[in-house]
């Protein structure tokens, strides 16, 4: 039913209260408080959801195919159906029937800045999404896991939460526990808290995030068991990204069709890419910043029409589609469409966070690779040998390459090492190593000549001092 290609209309559905070009000026962004939120249609979706059974809400979300906005693109409604049912005769939160929502607001993937706006300017939209999810899945506590460096955003969330508690969205007299909850589900108290991280990229991985809430080191867990069955404190747990949850407000207010009318169908027989997406553009363009478009917008159009073109009129050389873990788009892939097909069509890991970083013709791609490999070396949690050791070796090899001290065999070794790492080759617990794999492999493959140009010549045999 959706569109086959991007039709050129920019949208501002998630950003409707956050001024974003071409609908408004970035300078007009401000904190939207409870009253302003309600005056502009807020919390209507929550009331509509509560009038329906939890199952009906899950089915509506499942129908809309809201693919996760945190990087993996897994459909939210489907994920929710993995939860075991609330035990017979109990309500969520009763002893033995605790069920949790962990909101992923870690946003640490280099190049990514989108969840921060949703929390800084319009936090009630997120809180409404959380309340809808708690109703649909029967979850009695939500923890918003926000990265430690987001001081302002955590403050704004606390401010919005105080308003929401006062107005009965959460807490003892919450809507789920009142007559508003008329759709047939159980009545129960829902709480929502901010839990601040403390500077570790790996805590964005969903099971590491749970460990961090439990007060432990952020070590990803071996799966199964999956968090839906045994998550936070061993209880059934849903983990969703901030942006994914914000989309629930549109779906439950206007219906799944309204959501599906945005975005595009897959052109390669895969699952569709419905809805709009916040896209934070960074790098060498004239007007970087966070925009919102329907999924499927071609990168070239995004840069040329909305970002004022490449900076100083330079030529496009390469782009990372959505966080460094995704790998790189080559010079001939400027027309790549930003949707969930991108991984299979353009040999990158995937759409990721859809926040592109663009590089112009003067960029040294070996230096790009070196920067990215340093990131992984620094952020590997150290549980798996290929990731812990491999990331260190890759960084050393890339330093040698940037310094012009590498020989041809070093380049081959770099590639071989990169390809051997990751949960897809089956050697590591989490996806951090796959990110490292894709980033290194695609940069070297797509820009091999630049790496070769930095190699030292091969050894030559010479006879010295013959007599």
């Amino acid at each position, binding site marked *: 039913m959706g569109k086959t290609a991007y039709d050129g209309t920019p949208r501002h559905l998630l950003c409707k209260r956050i001024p974003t070009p071409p609908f408004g000026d970035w300078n007009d962004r401000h904190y939207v408080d409870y009253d302003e939120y309600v005056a502009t249609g807020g919390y209507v979706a929550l009331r509509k959801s509560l009038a329906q059974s939890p199952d009906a809400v899950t089915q509506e979300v499942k129908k809309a195919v809201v693919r996760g906005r945190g990087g993996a693109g897994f459909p939210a409604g489907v994920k929710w159906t993995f939860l075991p049912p609330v035990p017979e005769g109990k309500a969520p939160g009763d002893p033995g029937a605790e069920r949790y929502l962990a909101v992923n607001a870690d946003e640490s993937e280099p190049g990514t800045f989108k969840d921060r706006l949703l929390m800084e300017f319009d936090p009630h939209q997120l809180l409404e999404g959380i309340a809808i999810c708690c109703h649909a899945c029967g979850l009695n506590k939500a923890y918003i896991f926000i990265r430690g460096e987001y*001081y*302002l955003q955590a403050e704004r969330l606390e401010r919005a939460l105080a308003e929401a508690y006062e107005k009965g969205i959460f807490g003892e007299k919450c809507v789920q526990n009142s007559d508003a909850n008329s759709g047939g589900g159980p009545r129960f108290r829902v709480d929502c808290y901010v839990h601040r991280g403390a*500077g570790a990229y790996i805590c964005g991985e969903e099971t590491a995030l749970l460990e961090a809430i439990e007060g432990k080191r952020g070590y990803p867990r071996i799966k199964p068991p999956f968090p839906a069955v045994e998550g936070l404190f061993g209880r059934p747990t849903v983990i969703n990204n901030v942006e994914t949850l914000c989309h629930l407000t549109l779906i439950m207010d206007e219906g799944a069709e309204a959501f599906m009318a945005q975005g595009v169908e897959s052109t390669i027989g895969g699952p569709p890419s419905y809805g709009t997406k916040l896209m934070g553009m960074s790098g060498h363009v004239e007007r*970087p910043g966070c925009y919102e478009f329907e999924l499927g917008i071609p990168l070239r159009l995004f840069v040329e029409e909305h970002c004022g073109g490449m900076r100083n009129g330079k030529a496009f050389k390469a782009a990372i589609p959505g966080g460094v873990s995704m790998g790189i788009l080559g010079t001939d892939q400027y027309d790549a469409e930003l949707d969930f097909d991108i991984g299979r069509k353009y040999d990158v890991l995937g759409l990721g966070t859809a926040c592109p970083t663009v590089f112009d013709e003067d960029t040294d791609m070996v230096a790009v690779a070196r920067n990215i490999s340093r990131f992984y070396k620094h952020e590997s949690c*150290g549980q798996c040998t290929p990731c812990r050791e491999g990331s260190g070796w890759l960084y050393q090899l890339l330093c040698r390459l940037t310094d012009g001290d590498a020989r041809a065999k070093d380049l081959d070794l770099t590639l071989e090492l990169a390809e051997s790492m990751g949960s897809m080759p089956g050697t590591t617990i989490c996806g951090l190593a796959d990110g490292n794999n894709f980033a290194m492999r695609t940069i070297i493959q797509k820009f091999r000549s630049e790496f070769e140009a930095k190699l030292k010549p091969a050894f030559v045999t010479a006879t010295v001092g013959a007599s």
Partner: protein
Amino acid sequence: MPWITKDSGTINIDRRDEPYLNDTLVAEIRDKYLPRYERKAGALLPALHLVQHQYGWIPHQAMVEIAKLLDMAPADVIDTASFYEEYWLKPKGKHVVAVCRSIACEFCGQPELTDAVREHLGVDVGETTDDNEFTIIELECLGSCGTAPVMLVDHDLYENVKPEQVAEILTKAKAANAH
């Protein structure tokens, strides 16, 4: 790199009679944070944040006190605390200048920015000035790549920073209250 060996064998625990967890801190942890979690250890990250906010870093004695309050082994508290980069287990300068060194920032002027900070303060990344005012660190992506290069000075984010603005920003920070 949380897996790098910590210098736990050589740590000198400075003990003092007065507890680091004063009544206000204990009350806040006990009344505000503990009820939020099914297990007490859930309140560990918030407790560490509170102590760091109060003292600028997390002394070992404070970790032992937290362990007692949360019914944990002190070793488990240290285990967790040493994993997270944002927790300072050694004293730092009054202000922390954190320059983002990730992808968008490095290619939009971060090297010049770091140099300017270094030059202005006269110390290298990872070091603290002699007057204990500033510590310089480099961090990975701060989630503001559209306005690269960026740096955090204490809790304030500065965007599109030009090297020539560094002096003014740091002078202002020095005048403001330390965190």
